[in-house]
């Protein structure tokens, strides 16, 4: 009964005690999958590669603490790193200054004007300041009207100069106007432009130089593909923006552009925008949500989290001590079995252990193997469970009877349990159990 299982259980223990480590081999397939998922989510190809390589290197050698596979652990590590990378030092929007000036930039159709309206509303209702919107898109037909309509909807003044085709002077005049009117945050909406349009990039550079904004924001469509890096970099090189705004997140895009941009220019993502309405559609950025959205492996991440919760760190230390002192008993054993069973199917779990996967493939292990062991242990008294040494012939006979096994079966089990204890101790003293 115990023969086949013994090796496997050792493996499982190894896993539980944190002696499995992430190796190049046991995560190779996962790293590939992760990279593929990132690229599928529109994360820039090079960045996906670099990112996974860096994390893999960092993760190698790390202990697989609980009953999760190395691959699953890798997914979790990537997810955490992703969250951290995108979170960084997210700072509030800077509206100090009198007036504070916010410059809005981005490609055509990215959602600048709608965002400007949302931001004005946010500043007015949440930050209790008086905003002024400024229409500096002098090119797109009816762009000025569009901003005017939005301003009306939220009760914010919109500064326009229909005859003036120079965004620099419009913006300057608007600031003077705000000072006079006592408005304390000036939001300058600009025309969409391509990063390769030299003339237009010079224009926004000039606007920025002229008005010295407290905050320059780069607005980007969350559906953007591989080009996000080029555009973000070009805009950043030119106008050194302070933060990023992700728009249209109410769509179903995975939004990998967010990672590409953060990775490339390392500027905080300050707002996300979801929806065409101006009210209640502007959010602060939650790195964790975004990383889950991009990676799309939420199931695995939460599985690992659950497993990690269940794995009690202190318990592990207590066990290690017991093993070292050769005090590992049947109660501990029972607990370990339960631990394993909580994680799910035993065969799957064993299969995740490096080197074990192939071995268990053809072996029929199911929970009934555990049931037998459990039955034997359950037939012991508490004293017997805590002191395996007191199991004499008479006690064994009683246990065999109580658990519906033969005395030979009980003997084999106890013998193998002793062997296992020795093994565990030896492995531990080899330093494999250290964390």
């Amino acid at each position, binding site marked *: 009964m115990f023969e086949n299982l013994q090796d496997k259980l050792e493996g499982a223990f190894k896993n539980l005690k944190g002696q499995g480590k992430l190796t190049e081999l046991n995560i190779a397939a996962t790293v590939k999958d992760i990279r593929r998922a990132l690229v599928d989510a529109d994360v820039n*190809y090079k960045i996906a590669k670099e990112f996974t390589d860096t994390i893999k290197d960092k993760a190698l050698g790390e202990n697989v603490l609980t009953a999760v596979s190395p691959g699953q652990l890798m997914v979790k590590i990537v997810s955490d790193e992703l969250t951290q990378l995108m979170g960084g030092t997210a700072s509030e929007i800077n509206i100090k200054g009198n007036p504070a000036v916010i410059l809005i930039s981005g490609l055509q159709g990215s959602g600048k004007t709608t965002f400007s309206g949302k931001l004005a509303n946010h500043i007015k209702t949440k930050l209790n300041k008086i905003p002024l919107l400024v229409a500096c898109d002098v090119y797109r037909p009816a762009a000025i009207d569009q901003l005017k309509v939005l301003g009306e909807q939220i009760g914010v003044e919109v500064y326009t100069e229909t005859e003036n085709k120079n965004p620099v002077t419009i913006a300057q005049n608007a600031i003077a106007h705000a000072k006079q009117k006592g408005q304390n945050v000036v939001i300058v909406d600009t025309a969409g432009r391509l990063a390769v349009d030299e003339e237009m990039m010079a224009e926004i550079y000039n606007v920025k130089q002229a008005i010295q904004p407290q905050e320059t924001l780069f607005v980007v469509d969350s*559906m953007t*593909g*591989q080009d996000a890096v080029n555009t973000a970099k070009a805009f950043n090189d030119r106008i050194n923006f302070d933060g990023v705004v992700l728009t249209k997140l109410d769509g179903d*895009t995975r939004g990998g552009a967010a990672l590409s941009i953060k990775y490339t220019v390392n500027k905080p993502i300050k707002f996300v925008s979801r929806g065409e309405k101006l009210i209640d559609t502007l959010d602060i950025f939650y790195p964790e949500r975004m990383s889950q959205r991009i990676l799309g492996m939420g199931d695995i991440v939460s599985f690992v989290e659950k497993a990690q919760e269940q794995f009690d760190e202190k318990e592990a230390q207590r066990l290690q001590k017991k093993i070292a002192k050769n005090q590992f008993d049947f109660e501990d054993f029972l607990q370990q079995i339960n631990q394993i069973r909580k994680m799910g199917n035993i065969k799957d779990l064993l299969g995740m252990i490096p080197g074990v996967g192939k071995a268990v493939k053809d072996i029929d292990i199911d929970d009934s193997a555990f049931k037998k062991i459990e039955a034997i242990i359950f037939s012991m008294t508490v004293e017997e469970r805590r002191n395996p040494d007191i199991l004499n012939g008479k006690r064994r006979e009683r246990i065999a009877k109580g658990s519906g096994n033969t005395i030979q079966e009980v003997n084999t089990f106890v013998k193998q349990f002793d062997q296992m204890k020795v093994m565990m101790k030896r492995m531990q003293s080899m330093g494999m159990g250290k964390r």
Partner: protein
Amino acid sequence: MGIFDKIFGKTKSSEEIIVEEKQLHDGLEKTKQGFFSKISKAVAGKSTVDIEFLDELEEILISSDVGLPTTIKIIDRLEVRVARDKYLNANELNNILKDEIGNILAENNTKDLPSFLPNTDKKPYVIMVVGVNGVGKTTTIGKLAYQFKKAGKEVLLGAGDTFRAAAVDQLTIWSERVGVQIVKQSMGSDPAAVAFDTVQSGVAKGVDIILLDTAGRLHNKQGLMDELSKIKKVMSKVIPDAPHEVLLVLDASTGQNALEQAKQFSAATQVTALALTKLDGTAKGGVILSIADEFKIPIKYIGLGEKMDQLQVFNRQAFIETLFE
């Protein structure tokens, strides 16, 4: 001028051809640099297609938003062809690659259009324009109206976006710019009613082509997609087979989400043609290859700037040729 002579030579003055070629060339120049010129570099001095080259090719295709499945398909086909035909130098490999990419486009019905004009005797010919927010629907309508009018057609615009602030004003300015008529109602009115009005008025006026603008909408919003189906349906009450064309506008800078857009807009409105805008930027627009690969929707127009004349009919050969130059 090569390829452009063949395609545009008969119907256009050589002056126009030069302008268009320059536009396409300028617009695609940045695209080109990151794309096929790299391939040439990758194969330079090599005599076999090795892993390194294929890796490079994969990177180039993915970085152009072609997407994984189509990238793999192109690479597979290339390998098959190379095994069969044997290639000798970068030039030949380029040709094979060009061929295979062309095939993918050809397989989805993308034809080389001789001109902007629909090949039809339907009058009025109704085109409904759809797409997500900000891709360039209204601008593309303005540009198309300009082309149709230039070709001597009577054009009528319908201001079906009654939702986005100043959308009607925007289309009105385009109608004035181009010099065509427009049917509009006030902001906030029922877009289906505008669509109905437009088609009815187009019939009464005897115009040749009707272009209907619609509000941008994200394809995962069922309510808005249903509205689009309704707008479409209402037009058929005036002309049973209208709209004759449903043009889905895609932004070249969009990544893999464009596939989902194509899928959902097709489900709601049976999209019949694609327009790819903003190809004057650094975005490569490679996702159209994926879309071509997955859906049987031909690509008809490409946008290369914000000006009236910066729209071109999609020409498979010209597109690929320019990329390979």
